[in-house]
């Protein structure tokens, strides 16, 4: 951490004046260094061509530090993953901060270091950014927005329109881990656990799949907010096809399952950060799962469902004991129940 004259963020750091410059020059620019950012211009300028994916997301998670990660790392991985779900190879990110007056420099610096590490791991450059400061009480320590650009993989053709009856649905890893790890440190809900968030950049894993299977990857989705159930409902609605979901093979860590039981939450609706879902032709599904299991973040991959012409626009869960039920979109937030 650099030596600074201040140890907390004040309104002046967002003024665009001397303090803003001090903050940026004190190490932020050095930390995130790359030729486009080094121009220190109003925006990044570069040559670009080819099929492109462009995505944006805002990060408001609380608490900003949680087991296994923080809001900075999440802001990089989240947008990287959104691009990866388009079949793109992420390249450039923008990075905007809305800081709340009073955020300590120590916390801010720690987040910046995480952002740099996450960007390195994902292989992206942060080429432009912005910093605003709001009065104490008007924010929640820090909000981050990132936008990203990437070229679409030459062999990729990802679209809900490609989903066919008979397609198998693959999940790349254990579900609900991120949401439960966050829940364990929320005020009023603290419980002891060794669980950590699964936040991770999925772009290298996705690229390896696309290199080998190309257009056989019909659709990619990352089940973040709203979890696996919401993604499947969106796909069923948009494709006008039905989805069968099989409870037995859904990978979930024992500790996550236990926490969900205790808290009265359905893991199908709990958020994920380092997991994606792929819709693929039935005859390729097993091969794709085997490949995924050799890749980073894919060890627990499993086939958890299929697409059908029956019950169009509905997701039907086949329970472990042979019963069936409809899995709907989540209404509002999942709330803990009384007993």
């Amino acid at each position, binding site marked *: 951490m650099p030596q600074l004259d201040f140890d907390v963020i004040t309104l002046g750091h967002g003024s665009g004046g001397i303090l803003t410059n001090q903050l940026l020059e004190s190490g932020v620019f050095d930390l995130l260094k790359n030729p486009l950012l080094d121009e220190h211009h109003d925006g990044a300028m570069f040559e670009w061509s080819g099929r492109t994916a462009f995505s944006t997301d805002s990060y408001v998670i609380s608490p900003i530090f949680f087991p296994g990660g923080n809001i900075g790392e999440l802001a990089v991985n989240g947008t990287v993953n959104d691009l990866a779900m388009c079949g793109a190879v992420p390249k450039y990110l923008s990075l905007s901060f809305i800081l709340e007056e009073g955020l300590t420099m120590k916390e801010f610096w720690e987040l910046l270091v995480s952002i740099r590490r996450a960007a390195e791991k994902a292989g992206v450059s942060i080429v432009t950014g912005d910093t605003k400061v709001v009065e104490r009480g008007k924010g929640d320590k820090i909000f981050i927005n990132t936008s990203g650009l990437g070229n679409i993989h030459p062999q990729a053709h990802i679209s809900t329109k490609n989903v066919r009856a008979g397609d198998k649905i693959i999940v790349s890893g254990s579900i609900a881990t991120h949401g439960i790890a966050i829940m364990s440190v929320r005020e009023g*809900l603290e419980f002891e656990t060794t669980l950590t968030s699964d936040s991770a950049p999925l772009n290298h894993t996705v690229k390896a799949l696309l290199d080998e299977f190309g257009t056989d990857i019909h659709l990619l989705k990352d089940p973040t907010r709203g979890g696996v159930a919401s993604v499947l409902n969106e796909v069923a609605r948009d494709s006008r096809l039905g989805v069968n979901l099989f409870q037995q093979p859904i990978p979930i860590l024992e500790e996550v399952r236990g926490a969900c039981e205790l808290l009265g939450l359905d893991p199908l609706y709990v958020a994920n950060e380092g997991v994606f879902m792929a819709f693929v032709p039935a005859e390729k599904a097993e091969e794709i799962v085997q490949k995924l299991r050799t890749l980073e973040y894919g060890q627990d991959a499993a086939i958890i469902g299929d697409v059908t012409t029956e*019950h169009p626009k509905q997701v039907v869960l086949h329970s472990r*004991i042979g019963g069936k*039920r*409809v899995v709907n979109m989540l*209404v509002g937030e999942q*709330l803990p129940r*009384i007993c």
Partner: protein
Amino acid sequence: MKYLSEFRDPEVVEHYLEELHKVATRPWTIMEICGGQTHSLVKNGLLNLLPKQITMVHGPGCPVCVTPLNLIDKAVYLAEEKGVILCSFGDMIRVPGSSRSLLEAKANGADVRILYSPLEAVKIAQEHPHRQVVFFAVGFETTAPANALSVLHARRLGLTNYSILASHVLVPPAMEAVINDGEAQIQGFLAAGHVCTIMGLEEYEPIVQKYHIPMVVTGFEPVDLLQGILMTVKQLENGEAKLENQYSRVVKANGNPEARKVIEQVFEVSDREWRGIGNIPLSGWEVNASLAEFDANRKFSISIAKASECADCIAGQVLKGIKKPFECSQFGKGCTPITPLGAPMVSSEGACAAYYHFAEADVV
């Protein structure tokens, strides 16, 4: 997971279903009392696997559903007009009051917090000595010990800024109300496992005797429920009426005496209005007079108008087992979990929500 996976074992489920098909020779109507049981029956798709002769009707055992409109309005009033920190279990905050829910009050700026335990609310009261903290103490006998403990804990800490808005309801009087109502024609009961964990079995024997009705204290997992139903059907087929305990791994005959001691220190029996059902004599608990300073009802002057229920909602008939949720003209149309007209569409334990979320398309 120990004590869970074995009660979800597909082979054991298959075994009990086969037994049930063999044993049930005539049509029987059985009520499961607890909303948690309703939820599990629907969530696991069990209703469609049962023999056709067996009709399950869903009982009033959803605390959120039976909490009167008036009390929700009181909670909203305390949060909005008295500036208290209003703490609640999660599923209570979406239930519509006469003008709005606690969730809407929160969106309008009221300080409403979702907690898992009333002891957390006591902690909040300690941390905010200059603000009044009220815990919305909703529930059956199951949640009463923890709510009572929070009052005793606050007294021990000498807190003057903590109180509870109690809306406790009791199962046995509700069972009698359902039987006496007669319309639902209940022939057997699955009694609520977790309530009996606290209260034991003592209160139920007189009901079994008085009305000659079979009753089986039952758990919540698929195997529990099927075993409980099987035990009830066996009694019915044999013309017996006994109190049996399927959930003996958790429920002891004398319940949890320590927990009951705590309840006795804090609560006293009172008449209680049940949303959708009406007034049932001696069917609730309120904070006893010696602890008045911890009773939000006495502590704050609350002036709210008496509200009336939505005319289209048939929650009362659903809670008494007279109608199924999908027999309501508003089900899934005017009334959904996003725009609930009555509480059973909101709570995760409510019969309407259970059908809306989980029932198969051809059932609905």
